[in-house]
């Protein structure tokens, strides 16, 4: 259960500040009245759950209490937990098997500037390497200064190959070259790093679509995964980011980075409630091993473990 303990420890800030605070006010108050609802609203919004999802959770509580009469604190918390689990859906991690749909299995990684794409890619590569897969990285950030160098250092540390081009080169061309190289070398997994871009810059989003198109022409059903890296410290703008990237690329999942440093893990709930895009991975630390497949049961369990 070492992994569960680690998750619990890394989510400790969200656990104490979000779920812990909720448990405290619910236990301290005793009955579900307007005052308690307002206190719960404050805690949920402070936890980045968002106005809309918060209203939904509290509305659900009120309804249950109308139907079942006065709820005991334990019941209030249980209903809350159940509602959160319902919103998060039934994502279960398949710890041991990360199925590869083709060779190479191509993963396109995108996101806003500074969310942690490159670091997350290194961690993702590590997950595949640990399962005995061969990995190739593609550095398609041809814009930011020293982006190549940054990924190159990770590639060296991981002992995997990397395909790059000159700064200013067409990123789609780099992706194409990398895919060709992966095919020629019989690599299992190709992970493509792209330049950070604000989701509102339509020309830059066009550039991403082109990368995706080029991959799709070269390999059937490619890219097989398209991941958006979101920074967990971002607030409700995460919704906007996910929506626009999804419109442009058709995301297969979200990689939520930097979840360990924030007390605002509520964003996971908001994302899942507002957009039906699965959270695939969560980043919970600065070490190479600190990326996990997202598992609703484990996540909710870690959050509610003390309450």
């Amino acid at each position, binding site marked *: 259960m070492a992994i569960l303990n680690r998750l619990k420890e890394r989510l400790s*800030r969200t656990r104490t500040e979000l779920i812990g605070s909720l448990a405290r006010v619910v236990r301290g108050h005793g009955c579900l009245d307007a005052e308690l609802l307002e206190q719960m609203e*404050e805690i949920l*919004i*402070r*936890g*980045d759950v*968002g*106005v*809309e999802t918060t209203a939904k959770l509290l509305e659900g509580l009120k309804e249950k209490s109308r139907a079942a009469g006065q709820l005991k604190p334990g019941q209030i918390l249980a209903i809350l937990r159940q509602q959160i689990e319902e919103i998060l859906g039934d994502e279960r991690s398949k710890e041991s098997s990360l199925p590869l749909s083709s060779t190479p299995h191509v993963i396109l990684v995108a996101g*806003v*500037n*500074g*969310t*942690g794409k490159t670091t997350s890619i290194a961690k993702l590569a590590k997950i595949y390497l640990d399962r005995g897969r061969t990995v190739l990285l593609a550095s398609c950030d041809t*814009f*930011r*200064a*020293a*982006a190549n*160098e*940054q990924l*190159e*250092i*990770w590639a060296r540390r991981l002992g995997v190959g990397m395909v790059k081009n000159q700064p200013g080169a*067409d990123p*789609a*061309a780099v992706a194409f070259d990398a895919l060709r190289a992966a095919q020629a070398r019989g690599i299992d997994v190709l992970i493509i790093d792209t330049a950070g871009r*604000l*989701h*509102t*810059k*339509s*020309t830059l989003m*066009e550039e991403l679509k*082109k990368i995706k198109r*080029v991959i799709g022409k070269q390999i059937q059903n490619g890219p097989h995964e398209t991941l958006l890296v979101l*920074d967990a*410290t*971002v*607030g*409700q*703008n*995460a919704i*906007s*980011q996910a929506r626009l990237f999804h419109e442009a690329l058709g995301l297969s999942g979200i990689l939520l980075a*930097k979840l*360990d*440093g*924030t*007390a*605002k893990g509520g*964003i996971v709930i908001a994302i899942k409630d507002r957009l039906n895009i699965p959270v695939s991975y969560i980043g919970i630390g600065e070490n190479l091993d600190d990326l996990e497949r997202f598992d609703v049961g484990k996540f909710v369990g870690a959050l509610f473990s003390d309450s």
Partner: protein
Amino acid sequence: MFEELTRRLNSALRDLRGRGKLSEKIVDEALRDVRRAMLEADVNYQVAKDFIRRVREKAIGQEVLKSVRPAQVVVKIVHDELVQLLGGEASTLDLSSSGSTVIMLVGLQGSGKTTVAGKLALHLRSRGKKTLLVAADVYRPAAGDQLSLLGEQIQVPVYVASGKKPVEICAKAKERARREGIDAVLLDTAGRWHIDKEMMQELVDIRRKVAPDEILLVADAMTGQEAVNLAKEFDALLDLSGVVLTKMDGDARGGAALSLRAVTGKPIKYVGMGEKLDALEPFYPDRMASRILGMGDVVTLVEKAKATMDLSEQRKLEEKLRQKTFSLDDFLSQLHQLKKMGPLDGLLDLVPGFEASGIVVDEKALVRVEAMINSMTAQERENPKIIEGNRKRRIAAGSGRTVQEVNQLLRQFAMIQKMVSGMGERGWEKNLLSMRSKRRKGRVYR
């Protein structure tokens, strides 16, 4: 960027504007919507609560409700409180200290410290300050390389000392600055969690050792409710002198701006408005408040124009417009003036209502247009009608474009000519808008 908050606040306040008389109940309803809009924009819960309380206290006062135009008074109260919340007076860097001014940049990972370092260095250099960039991030792979490349681009020296501790690097850099008579030293520290005690201690040590004149917190404008925690932690340990908000050119609803200022009491000094190194702007609380309330930031736009546009050129141009002799040469000179004003996207955001229009501007298209016009003879620029097949082929070959693109330019120019001939009086803002190009087509894959 603030448009969503703007939209929500506007709709909350519009209901008020339509009424002659206000009751407490109506004000409360409007303020409930304002509060919700603020929370959705990631304004900190407590900050929003206090804000609403203050506005309510003032708005419910007898004089307001009895005044001739009560709704306008309430809107004004909201505006004034926003200005207060955003920090009242504008504040920029203090470079008055004799010797080298040391500016330390701190923040979370990915907030944009290195890019801000480059932007500030360019800003200082262009004001004639001898500047030194210091790579004090020894943890993130290739952080030093990134800063070195930025320094190269803007011709500012970069101090990199691999294998040394950040405290030592900063101290050595300060020494070098003093020796070489450098005016401003920018310390680019590594990103870190505000809860990471060890890493935060490193910043405390640097501060103790080099005594920076300014410590700026670089924060992502999209930060959620955590903004308050991180600002408090950094401020408690380092006594910040100000904040730089980055990625403001996205659709961040600006809640972080309001919260950061409110909890630290420290001014927002600059905002990052784009990926290019000249996309850094001073922060004006009053203008930002107007912008949040949807009044557009025409003052900034006019100031930018004044700073970069040659007024005599403008007068000549307006004369030409009146006489309907607007030529491709004039068009080119306008393009140049526009480019001097900075990234086009950022510029157009300042025009009220432009963002909502969904029009897409492509700067590369402007470069191509410039190349084609540059390949024309003076006679052709004066009178584009004479450009037939042979001339088109020559222009296309000369500019590396296709004949179709030359045709397209001529067609567009004819349209512009037609448009401007009808608007000579209306001045340059409209010209600017007429040059927006259409959504670009997919680029050719090479």
